[in-house]
């Protein structure tokens, strides 16, 4: 297995009324296991759309996405969900925790969906790692933004995913909190050997990855290796 994620000639067009808007045009790239990658570009350039397609959260107009040896285009919604559950972790700009579940319950979900008996233990261990063991019974609305994102981080790693997608993980956080989340992200990634795909407009954060893909107007503008691989 030489690639964990391959994107071939991906195109996505949104139809709104009688006008159509091409958000992604002919995007192709491939990522090796263990690699870390940043996708950068101005707001509205199609980063979130691309990430969503890579993770199988949406269907492409044309082109293909192969994630962990599965050709997503051909899979049913359920099969894609199964691929996500086994192999993929997520972090969103706006945290996306389930408001009616406690921090601990939020972290446990991926493991529980997978039917793991040790969900609780694993989740507690992860909360410990992100420094929130003592807040495990709080609801998201009782946590600060940084704390919520750390819970989301713990949730993302809960199933030991092969690949982690992070969409502007620090976009909603202040600098020092963002820094803390960033450090946690990279250290957990290192520890677990996860492939990492980060979407960001923060070039400093992008610089910490091994490879940067720049999107402009829905196309790959550049694809470069950084000098200082992490």
């Amino acid at each position, binding site marked *: 297995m030489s690639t964990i994620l391959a994107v071939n000639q991906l195109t996505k067009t949104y139809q709104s009324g009688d006008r159509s808007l091409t958000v992604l045009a002919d995007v192709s790239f491939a990522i090796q296991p263990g690699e870390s990658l940043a996708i950068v570009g101005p707001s509205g350039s199609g980063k979130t759309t691309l990430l969503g397609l890579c993770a199988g959260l949406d269907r492409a107009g044309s082109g293909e996405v192969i994630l962990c040896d599965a050709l997503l285009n051909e899979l049913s919604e359920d099969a894609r969900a199964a691929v996500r559950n086994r192999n993929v972790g997520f972090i969103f700009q706006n945290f*996306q925790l389930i408001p*009616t579940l406690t921090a601990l319950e939020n972290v446990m979900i991926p493991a529980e*969906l997978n039917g793991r008996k040790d969900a609780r233990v694993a989740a507690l261990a992860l909360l410990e790692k992100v420094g929130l063991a003592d807040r495990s019974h709080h609801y998201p609305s009782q946590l600060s933004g940084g704390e919520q994102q750390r819970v989301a981080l713990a949730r993302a790693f809960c199933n030991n995913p092969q690949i982690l997608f992070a969409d502007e993980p620090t976009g909603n956080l202040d600098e020092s909190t963002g820094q803390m989340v960033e450090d946690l992200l990279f250290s957990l990634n290192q520890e677990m050997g996860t492939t990492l795909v980060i979407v960001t407009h923060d070039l400093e954060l992008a610089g910490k990855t091994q490879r940067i893909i720049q999107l402009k107007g829905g196309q790959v503008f550049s694809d470069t290796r950084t000098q200082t691989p992490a």
Partner: protein
Amino acid sequence: MIDWSFIRQLAWRDSRKNRGRLVLFMSSIILGIAALVAINSFNYNLQDDIDEQAASLLGADLVVSGNQPVTDSLGVLLAALPGEKATKLDLFSMAYFPATDRTQFVRLQGLAGNFPFYGSLKTEPATARQELTNPHAALVDNGFMDQYGIQIGDSIRLGNRSFFIAGRLLNDFASANVAAGFAPPVYVAQSALEQTGLVQAGSLVNYNYYYKLPAAFEVKPWTDKYDNAFRNESLRLQTIAGQKENLSDAFANLNSFLNLVALVSLLLGCIGVASSVLIYVRTKIPSIAIFRCLGMKGRDVFLVYLLQILVLGGLGVVFGAVLGTVVQLVLPILFKDFLPLEVSTSISWPAIGEGLVIGIFITMLFALVPLLPVRRISPLRILRTAFEQDLGQRDYAQWAVYLAIVAGLQAFLWYLTGSFVNGLMFTGGLLVSFLLLFAVARLITWGVQRFFPRRWSFVFRQGLANLFRPNNQTATLLVSIGLGTAILTTLFIIQGLLLENVGEMDAGNQPNVILYGIEKEQMTGLSELTTSFKLPIVQQVPIVTMRMTGWQGRTKADWLADSTRQAERWAFNREIRVTFRDSLDGFEEVLSGTFPKPRAAHGDSVFISLEEGFAESMHVKVGDEISFNVQGMPLTTFVGSTRKVDFTKMRTRFLVIFPAGVLENAPQFQVLVTKSPNPATTARYRTAVVKAFPNVSVVDLSSILTALSDILAKVSYVIQFMAVFSILTGFIVLVSSLLLSKLQRIKESVLLRTLGASSKQLLQISATEYALLGTLAAATGIFIALVSSWLLASFQLKLTFYVPWLAIGVIFVLVVAIIVVIGLLNSRDVLRKSPLEVLRREV
């Protein structure tokens, strides 16, 4: 200062987004009000229809009848009556049928004018009634024609004229008295009757005058005023109201039931409107928080959303009223061929008005419940605790709203039941049901949390946990499903009880053949003959005829001469048929005194029992003395009791009952009452009886009973129709309000989906949550229905209560199944959408 234009603009702008959700929100209001308007429209229209049916029992608004033409003074009174008039003469006469060479005693009726004004003279062929304008046409009783093989077109000789039979007569009018049943009816034109030579001085002719009065004419004051004047000339006044009184049980129960239906429609409107308003406002809380963060005053935000909801709700209410009216107008046309009764389809403005007023009222009150707290709490608190139940301390305005809801309910129920106390009992019942459901909801959240099955698989735990987690919908759903199940099940149980009751009253199940003039020693033979025809002996009583000679120490002549007397002449002028027995029958009730015990010794005083109306007309009471002439023998008695008699049951009724041990040896004859299943059996039975016992008269009441049977059939049809219609619309309203609940869980399900949950897992989570909710809500609802229908049946409707357990079981399973299906449908929706889209939208 309130900047209204800003508030108006903001309310408009905010409403533009999320049109789909808006449609869902409005649909529930529309359906709720449509149900209310449609149900009430049917209600009002059917009530009118039934009133008209009652009118068809008599055929006219007012009937004057007697053994002589009206006197001049009374004629002036009658001539002054507005409206249409018809007359009928009837008399007993011999008729000769040349085709079969048969002579028959018939009741000959000469009709002039457009009688009946209500209902119709049913004939075969149906158009035969019009033939009566032909001076040679006659209509003859169908049963009689069947019995003797007489055909349409045969001729019939009446007096010195010959007629041809133009049609068979299928019914007759209730004004016909029982004695009339001795002889089959024959109708001819009145002018023709006069030419037969049968109407002459000395012949016994019954004169009937029929009036169709304008709706504005108040007949009751008129009859109250002149009743005595007519009675004193031995003329009888009959009105529709009087006819309806005879059917009072059926009508009173029908009215109570239709009121119940109106109440149900109100509650359905409430559930539809309230659930959507509550959920709509809840989805708006985040936006409200943002407005407040941006510096808007609490009061202004409050007004923005109140205005928005009032406008949207108002539109929904108007659409609902239109939809309800359309359904009411179109449904009977669509199902025309299946309906036994022609349902009127006029637009019912009272129903529409009620729908509009109640709709707006409920919209406003239920919008205030979640909106009022928004006014007072800090924006931060809204942001932070948007997902928590308790939005801080309630203020007085909040309590005022609850109070207004209860007061509004009480006002409506007061209006509906016509009594403050009755209204209060219904309001109380609803409040208790509400609290009970709320308590059960609390019990679930507590119980599930307390005994949480930690070892169960994730999906079950997740489903169960949804019942107590913050922002859970346990209380809302339990109350709406429970209340919905309760009212619809109550309606179902009550309609079953009523139908049974009406069925008992139905003439179809009542005795329809009476045998008169049986000699004592013929009784055994006659009983055997009756049993051999497999006919039941419903009643068998002895009858002794007598006349009153005086009471309270004065003779009848004394009384008649006294111009100040109050007692009414008809009451003591008649020959009285008396029976004797030692107990009440099932259709009587002692009002005062005690029912006479058998006389023990020969010299003891005789205590008799009088029918209440008869005692009233004579102005006698318990303890008064009355003397009789029993076939030449003087007999003095005392009034021992007065009785109420149920005249709707077809039995021979007695104004005076003697105790056993007095009249046994007086000259008497026996009466036997039986029920024949069909005209053919009646005909064979009649022939057999007359052959074996020529002195016995067989009276067939079935043609008179047809009108009664018709109207009761229609009453039960109305009950059934309204029940089915209300239950179906109720179901739709309930389902639509439950579909709203998906808004609550949509984001959660999408996130689970993103994290890799399979369809099966999502569906299992919802199935678990809804199955538990549905089971408990249905069980509680059914429990409430059992209690409330028992209360209604026992205290309001006075019906024998029983529980249709099988149907209840089916209802239970059905409700739970439907709730689970709705739960599954709600999450199906999530499965179809791409997760990314939802995640984006919810940002």
